[in-house]
C-alpha cells in the first residue's frame, strides 16, 4: 500500500519525465517499411494470406497514428525497418528460442523485428479455430512501436491471447497509449460536411439521419460522432464512395435545404456537380439536359472561382462562398450576391483579437451534432458563435469566431494510411 501511495504521489512527475523517456523509445520517422522475410514464411498459410494479414495489421495501426507502413520487397533486408518471419525452436538467428506448440506464440523487439512461432496454429480472418494471425500481429507491432503489456480488459496488448468472436479493433485507450509515443494525426482537410439522408425506420416512419464526412485529397472518412472516432477501416478512396465527382481535391460540399429546395452540390476549382442522394451518384445532367460538371459562374452568378470553400446557412438561406480573404453570400432564392464580396474578418469577426484565420480557409462546416458552424484552416478550427452562445453571453459578436483549437482535440484519429493499402 505504501509503495502504491508513493507511486501515486510521484506519478505526475514520472509521467512528465517519462514522456521524454518514451519519446526516445519511439521511431522518429513517419513512414516505416516492413517485409515478411522469404526465409520466414509460415508452413500453415499461403504466402498471400500471410502478407495480407500483416498488411492489414500494419494498416490498423496507421489508422490511429501519424505513421504510414509500407511493405517493401525490393530493398536490401538491412534497410527494412521491421522484418517479420515465422520460425520454430531456434529460428531466424534469434537468441530466444520458441517453445513448440502452445504457450509462447510470438515475440517482438522494440524498434525491431517480429517472430511468430510456426509450431502454433495461426489462422486467418474467417477461421475461428487456432490463433488469429491478425490479432497476434497487431499485438507484436504494438511492441515494436514501444507499447508494453497491459492487463486492461479489452486491450490488444494483453500478454495472453484472448479469442474474439467478432472482428477486434484498437480501442480508445490503446489508441491513446500509442499516441503518447507518436502524437495524434493532424493535417488540413479539403472539405467536411454532414450528409443528410431520409430513411424509413422499422415502424415505417420517415426519419432524417446524418453522417459526418471528412475529405482529404482522394480519400474520405466517415466520422462516428457517438464513438469519437472514424469508422473502422477508413479512409476509403473517394471514387468508391462518391461516384461521378472529381476523385480528389474537392473544395466544398453544399446542401441547400429550404421548404421548396433540396439539393446537394460538390465544388472543385471552377466547376460543380449536383449530387443525387437517392442513388448515391452525381447527376450527369440537369433537368434541361445540360451536363455536369458546370461552371460555378453559370450556376451561381456573381460568385468568383475557383473558391476555397463554401457552406449553406439555413438561418438566412444564403450560400457563403469563401475565396482568399473575402466571403460572398449568394441568396439561393434571388440568386444574387448583393453587397458582396466582403472581408471574412468583417462578416465573421474574431472574439479574441488576433485570433482569426483571416484568409484561405480549407473548409467551413455546419455540424448537426454541435449545432454550430466551424471554420477550418491547417490544423486548427474556429467555432462560430451561435444562438445558444449569444444567450449565455450577449456581448459576443454575431457570427463571431471563438479562439482557435486543434482539430485533433475535437475530432479524433482521422489518419492517413499508405496509398498501397488504401484499397484493402
Amino acid at each position, binding site marked *: 500500500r505504501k509503495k*502504491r501511495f508513493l*507511486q501515486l504521489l510521484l*506519478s505526475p512527475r*514520472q509521467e512528465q519525465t*517519462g514522456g521524454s*523517456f*518514451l519519446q*526516445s*523509445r519511439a521511431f522518429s520517422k513517419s513512414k516505416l517499411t516492413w517485409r515478411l522475410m522469404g526465409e520466414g514464411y509460415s*508452413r*500453415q498459410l499461403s504466402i498471400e494470406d500471410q502478407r495480407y494479414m500483416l498488411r492489414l495489421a500494419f494498416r490498423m495501426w496507421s489508422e490511429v497514428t501519424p505513421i504510414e507502413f509500407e511493405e517493401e520487397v525490393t530493398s536490401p533486408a538491412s534497410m527494412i525497418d521491421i522484418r517479420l518471419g515465422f520460425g*520454430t*525452436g531456434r529460428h531466424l538467428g*534469434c*537468441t*530466444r*528460442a*520458441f*517453445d*513448440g*506448440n*502452445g*504457450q*509462447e*506464440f*510470438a*515475440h*517482438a*523487439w*522494440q*524498434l*525491431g*523485428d517480429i517472430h511468430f*512461432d510456426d*509450431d*502454433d*496454429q495461426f489462422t486467418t480472418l474467417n477461421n475461428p479455430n487456432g*490463433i488469429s494471425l491478425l490479432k*497476434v500481429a497487431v*499485438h*507484436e507491432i504494438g*511492441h515494436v512501436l514501444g507499447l*508494453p*503489456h*497491459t*492487463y*486492461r*480488459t*479489452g*486491450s490488444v496488448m494483453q*500478454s*495472453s*491471447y484472448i479469442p474474439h468472436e467478432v472482428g477486434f479493433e484498437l480501442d480508445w*485507450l490503446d489508441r491513446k497509449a500509442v499516441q503518447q509515443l507518436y502524437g495524434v494525426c493532424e493535417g488540413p482537410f479539403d472539405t467536411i460536411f454532414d450528409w443528410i439522408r431520409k430513411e424509413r425506420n422499422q415502424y415505417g416512419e420517415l426519419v432524417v439521419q446524418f453522417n459526418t464526412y471528412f475529405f482529404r485529397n482522394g480519400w474520405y472518412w466517415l466520422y462516428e460522432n457517438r464513438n469519437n472516432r472514424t469508422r473502422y477501416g477508413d479512409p476509403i478512396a473517394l471514387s468508391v464512395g462518391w461516384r461521378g465527382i472529381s476523385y480528389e481535391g474537392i473544395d466544398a460540399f453544399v446542401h441547400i435545404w429550404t421548404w421548396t429546395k433540396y439539393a446537394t452540390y460538390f465544388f472543385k476549382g471552377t466547376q460543380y456537380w449536383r449530387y443525387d442522394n437517392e442513388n448515391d451518384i452525381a447527376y450527369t445532367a440537369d433537368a434541361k439536359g445540360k451536363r455536369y460538371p458546370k461552371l460555378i459562374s453559370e450556376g451561381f452568378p456573381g460568385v468568383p472561382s475557383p473558391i476555397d470553400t463554401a457552406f449553406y446557412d439555413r438561418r438566412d438561406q444564403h450560400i457563403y462562398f469563401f475565396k482568399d480573404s473575402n466571403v460572398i453570400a449568394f441568396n439561393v432564392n434571388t440568386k444574387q450576391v448583393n453587397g458582396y464580396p466582403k472581408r471574412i474578418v468583417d462578416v465573421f469577426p474574431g472574439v479574441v483579437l488576433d485570433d482569426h484565420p483571416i484568409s484561405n480557409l480549407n473548409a467551413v462546416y455546419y455540424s448537426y451534432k454541435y449545432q454550430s458552424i466551424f471554420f477550418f484552416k491547417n490544423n486548427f478550427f474556429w467555432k462560430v458563435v451561435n444562438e445558444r452562445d449569444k444567450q449565455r453571453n450577449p456581448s459576443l459578436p454575431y457570427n463571431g469566431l471563438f479562439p482557435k483549437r486543434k482539430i485533433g482535440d475535437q475530432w479524433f484519429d482521422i489518419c492517413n494510411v499508405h496509398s498501397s493499402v488504401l484499397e484493402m
Partner: protein
Amino acid sequence: EKLFHIRDHSDILSISEQQASPILDQKAAQKYLAKYGWTEQVNWDNNEDQNSADEHPAPKELLDILQEGSSLSRQVGNTQTEPTKSIVYVQALKEFQEVNGLPMTGKLDEATKDAMNKPRCGVPDKKVLLNDTSNFNQTTHLNSTTDNGDGGTNATVNSKE
C-alpha cells in the same frame, strides 16, 4: 517435404514436432515467472545478449524449500524480516495471480497453472532495456482483469520501482 499420410495434410498440420512444456509444478512456475520478468526484470533489447530464464536456474536452497512441499505463504506469515528470495517468488506469484483475477494465495493452484499455460506473447511482462542510458524501465501496466462494471477503465497501477 514433411511426411504425411492424410490427403489434406492435417496429420502434419495438427501434430507439431515440438510441444511446449506445460506448467505443472512449482519449478516450472518459477521458470515462467523468471522468464517473463515477474521475479526480476528481464534484459530485453533488440535481440542482443538475451538471457533466457532457462540459463538461470533458481537457487538450490529455494528449490529445496519448494520441493519440501511447505507453503511459502506460511513461512512469510506476518513477519517483518528482510525479504528473502523465496519471498520474492511468492510475491511474484501473488502479483501474477492478482493481475489475472485469481485469488492471491501464493500457491500454485490449478487456476494459476491454467493462466500460465495460456497461449501468450513471448515478450516479458517486465523488462529493462539495456541500451537505455536512463533508468527507464518498461513494465506491464498491472490492471486487474476483474470486471468492476465500468468497462475496464480501472486506474492503472504502475509497478515501476
